[in-house]
């Protein structure tokens, strides 16, 4: 009798504990949650799942409950065990067994039909002429190529006139030369790390990779599709509303798989058009004779050209007398640099994320706190800086430039990722960050 309340207490405690864990787990914000679809394709998947859950639930209760129930009901305690007393020796019942072969088969058939319908629905693409984006996986960041003139085609960068689009218009996707070109035509737009899309329309993607297999996954917009080198996989996403979505590479792609993330920003179509126009502009060139701030940035530009430009491009206006035609110093081949390229930094400051979408480029600050705003240094402009509460995350950026491999797993000795620059002084870092902040 004395044992009982103790047990009940323990049981209640367990229950309360479990509920508390459950509640706290639900209360957290989950940017990758597949249960909260936003795009129509993710919703279609979730809707299919929603009526599978009850079927699974019923089978679960019947089988697991049946197993436990039968174990309790038919249990013979050791003291009651009689080795000569046998239950009825039932060897089987073919009718019953055929039934429980056929019934699950019919249930599965019922599940299969909408499954196959949805498999084909998910593959549906826009008519030619809509905006398409090419998604290229690299160790360990993503590059997004926009088809600027909006004719539904990607123009091949090597200028041989070979063109391809997600529906195979104008050429076979399989005809693409490998490895993929790094350099772009002037008319093309390549944006690393952050994919910006207009709301309310389906964006078709052509997904591929320059090195190993990656997988492109924005859980709230659609399922995932692998980025396979040598293949052009098609997929599509759509966001009905303005917002930011996160994703994570979901095919193991080597050392820094965990540092390969995606950020998708959906903008109103007008804002998107403006964004596209801004992105196509060449970078500003800070003048050494400008103000204190600008002179610092000009210093940074010189450092950038000396240290960073062998991997990173910044497109400057070739007609500007001070403009430099940045090109990749190395002729990248897979033997030399596994990922083949580094992100184009022309519009660096316009993005909310850097380092393979691992770090936020801006941090939230209290706009009423003057001290904090004074510390900003750079002007912190950017399309996300809508209410003035965001500041340039210069501390994280300095850490990154000085010693990137300590911030995100990389192996620069084997040409995998960005090397450390221990020789940079605090002033050098200030200058580089000031320069990067002008690249909006």
């Amino acid at each position, binding site marked *: 009798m004395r044992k009982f309340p103790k047990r009940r207490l323990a049981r209640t405690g367990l229950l309360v504990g479990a509920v508390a864990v459950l509640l706290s*787990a639900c209360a*957290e*914000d*989950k940017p*990758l*949650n*597949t249960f909260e679809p936003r795009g129509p394709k993710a919703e279609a*998947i979730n809707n*299919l799942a929603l009526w*599978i859950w009850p079927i*699974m639930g019923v*089978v*679960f209760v019947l*089988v*697991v409950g049946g*197993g436990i129930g039968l*174990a309790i009901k*038919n*249990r013979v305690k*050791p003291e009651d065990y009689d*080795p000569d007393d*046998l*239950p*009825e*020796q*039932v*060897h*089987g*019942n*073919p009718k019953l067994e055929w039934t*429980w072969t056929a019934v*699950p*088969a019919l249930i*599965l058939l019922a*599940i*299969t039909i909408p499954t*196959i319908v949805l*498999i*084909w629905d*998910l593959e549906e693409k826009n008519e030619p002429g809509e905006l398409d984006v090419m998604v290229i996986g690299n160790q360990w960041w993503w590059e997004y190529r926009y088809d600027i003139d909006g004719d539904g085609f990607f123009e091949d960068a090597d200028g041989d006139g070979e063109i391809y689009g997600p529906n195979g218009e104008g050429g076979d996707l399989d005809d693409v030369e*490998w490895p993929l070109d790094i350099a772009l035509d002037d008319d093309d737009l390549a944006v690393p790390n952050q994919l910006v899309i207009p709301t309310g329309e389906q964006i078709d993607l052509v997904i591929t990779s320059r*090195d190993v297999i990656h997988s492109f*996954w924005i*859980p709230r917009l659609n*399922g*995932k*599709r692998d980025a396979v*080198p040598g*293949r052009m996989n098609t997929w599509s996403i759509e966001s009905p509303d303005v917002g930011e979505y996160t994703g*994570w*590479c*979901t*095919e*193991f792609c*080597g050392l*820094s*798989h*965990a540092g390969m993330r995606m950020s998708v920003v959906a903008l109103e179509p007008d804002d998107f058009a403006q964004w596209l126009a801004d992105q196509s502009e060449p970078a500003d060139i800070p003048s050494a004779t400008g103000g204190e701030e600008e002179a610092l940035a000009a210093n940074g530009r010189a450092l950038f050209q000396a240290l960073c430009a062998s991997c990173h491009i910044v497109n400057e206006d070739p007609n500007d007398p001070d403009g430099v035609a940045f090109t990749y110093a190395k002729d990248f081949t*897979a033997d030399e640099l596994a990922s083949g390229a580094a992100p184009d930094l022309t519009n660096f400051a316009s993005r909310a994320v850097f380092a393979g979408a691992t770090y936020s480029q801006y941090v939230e600050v209290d706009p009423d706190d003057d001290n904090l705003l004074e510390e900003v240094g750079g002007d912190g402009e950017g399309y996300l800086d809508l209410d003035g509460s965001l500041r340039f995350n210069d501390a994280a950026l300095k850490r990154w430039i000085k010693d990137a491999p300590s911030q995100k*797993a990389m192996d620069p000795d084997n040409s995998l990722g960005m090397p450390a620059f221990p020789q940079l002084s605090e002033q050098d870092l200030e200058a580089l960050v000031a320069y990067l902040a002008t690249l909006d």
Partner: protein
Amino acid sequence: MAIIENETLALPSGDDPAVERPLGVFTRPRNQTGLKNWLTTVDHKKIGIMYGSAAMFFLLIGGLAALLIRIQLATPNNTFLSADAYNRIFTMHGTVMVFLVVMPIGAAFANYLMPLQVGARDVAFPRINAFSFWVFLAGGLMLNTSWFLGGGADGGWFNYAPNNGIIYSPSTGIDFWNMGLMIAGIGSLTGAVNLITTVLNMRAPGMTLMRMPVFVWMTLVTQFLLLFAIPVLTVAQVLLLMDRNFGASFFDVKLGADPLLWQHLFWIFGHPEVYLMILPAFGIVSEVIPAFARKPLFGYPFMVFSGIAIGFMGWGVWAHHMFVSGLGPLTVSGFAFATMFIAVPTGVKVLNWLATLWGGRLTLNTAMLFSIGLVTQFTIGGLSGVSHAIAPWDTQQTDTYYIVAHFHYVLFGGALFGFIAGFYFWWPKVFGYKLNEAHGKFNFWGMVLGFNLTFGPMHILGLQGMPRRMYAYDDAMGFNTWNMVATIGSFILAISTLWVLVNAFISYNRWKAAGRPDPGPDPWDARTLEWSVQSPTPEHNFDYTPVVTDLDDFWHRKFVEDENHRLKRVATGAELAQPGNAEGVHLPAPSYWPIVLAFSLPVIGYGVIFTLWLTIPGIVLMMVALFGWALEPADDPDVEGHHDGDDHEPEGSDGDDHELVGASS
């Protein structure tokens, strides 16, 4: 029917081999006990025990890796392990658990039990059996030496191209993965040939295929799966070996290769692999549940044919591992359809086990609890498996923790729970003492709690978007709570799984202190032939070859139907059991060559990885072993009492009287 009754392989010359010893025949090892005996034995029982012991050793390595993974993931952005260390550890965890734990435990049961259950003296090719074990151990040890020689493999157990190439993984880890598994695979292949031959050719008189215990059936299906699956993996590994070590370009995209080739090859192997890991456990619980429900397995033919159906259908579903690779909607639809329906035979098995429990008188001892544990936990894994077959939904699930949860419910909640049921059930037959029940109950409930705390939350984590193979996650992703729960669960699980070994140790000491009481040949009042010999099994298995007239023949000798069709006991197991005192039984002679041949292969393997010069002594050793083996007669000419002719029955036996004492039929 039974080869054991055929003549020995006499030397073709007809000369007395004892007089004229052929070239290369050394004095054969004759130790009955001690280390040398274990190294040279060809006894299927000792080999089975060694398979199990080796698997337990590797389980400690794989389990330690699992705990390191869980510690790293306990908190967001943990720095306990580096990305590189984490990648190597999760790769080795998967590889070790699949190839060096679950597969060899299945082989341990098959080796020890299958010959006993079919009434055979040994397997068909005893020396090849020893070789299979040693080559598995050689490959497994070689794979694990990579920890000390440049780090383990870092490409995942699936090791996708082109990430497995020399450019992307320049360290030697993947070379060890390649060579180690290729070598271990030889053991699986020779073992498969051996066990298939044994089942098909060496059954006792009267044991038709449809009188074979379900465990024997599942062993047969499993070995056929191995026979056809392992070569596919080896093909893929040879291509990779050529790429990595000899500059070939099978997976070089620049030169036109398609990296999906690797995925197809790997999963054509990999999916049958899943079934060959789980089917032995299905066989085990199909023996345990009837024994402790005290009624026959419900629907034996359905159980047999559903096992065969799984074996066949398992070859047609591999591309469900590749639903997001870009195969095209037609291929995806086809494989979604096929995958959906492989759930049917599996469901039949689960329902038939439940029907066996229905109306039974259940003894809920540890073996039975683990069996019911398998039925319930595996069902959860089966249900999540069906949800993967819904290909659009799978695009949200694949490569997330939802998949990790799924296959741990199948392989841990399924296969390993079944194996532990088997340990508790057959332990007295193998070692002569029962495992302690109180510790067993602790073992079971600890594992159920720890297992579900570890892997249950992973379903949620996966659907909330946590991908697999991530060494760190951010605080803001909302994965903190369930990861911490899973880590706590994993320690409960580790301790309670370890309790199998603790229990073995405690039970052994108590048994020794009690003066080693005999558990009797048939401690569970069970059904199949292995319970008709003494415990532990005598070295020669059967004093005389049993003759089988029924499914569950031993049971039907203990009970007969009365006029009301009720079963009445006519004898106890102990009364019916063979006394195990036969003398002069001819047994296959031990040999040095299997272990020598097996350990020559890693020497070649190290040579391929480090310096080709080392392959030369390896090849020389291999050739010596091969010739030594080939020239060694199957029979030991030096053993006293050796004589030609039909010497497989004990002296004094007339060789015809196969009736068991007290048989009623």
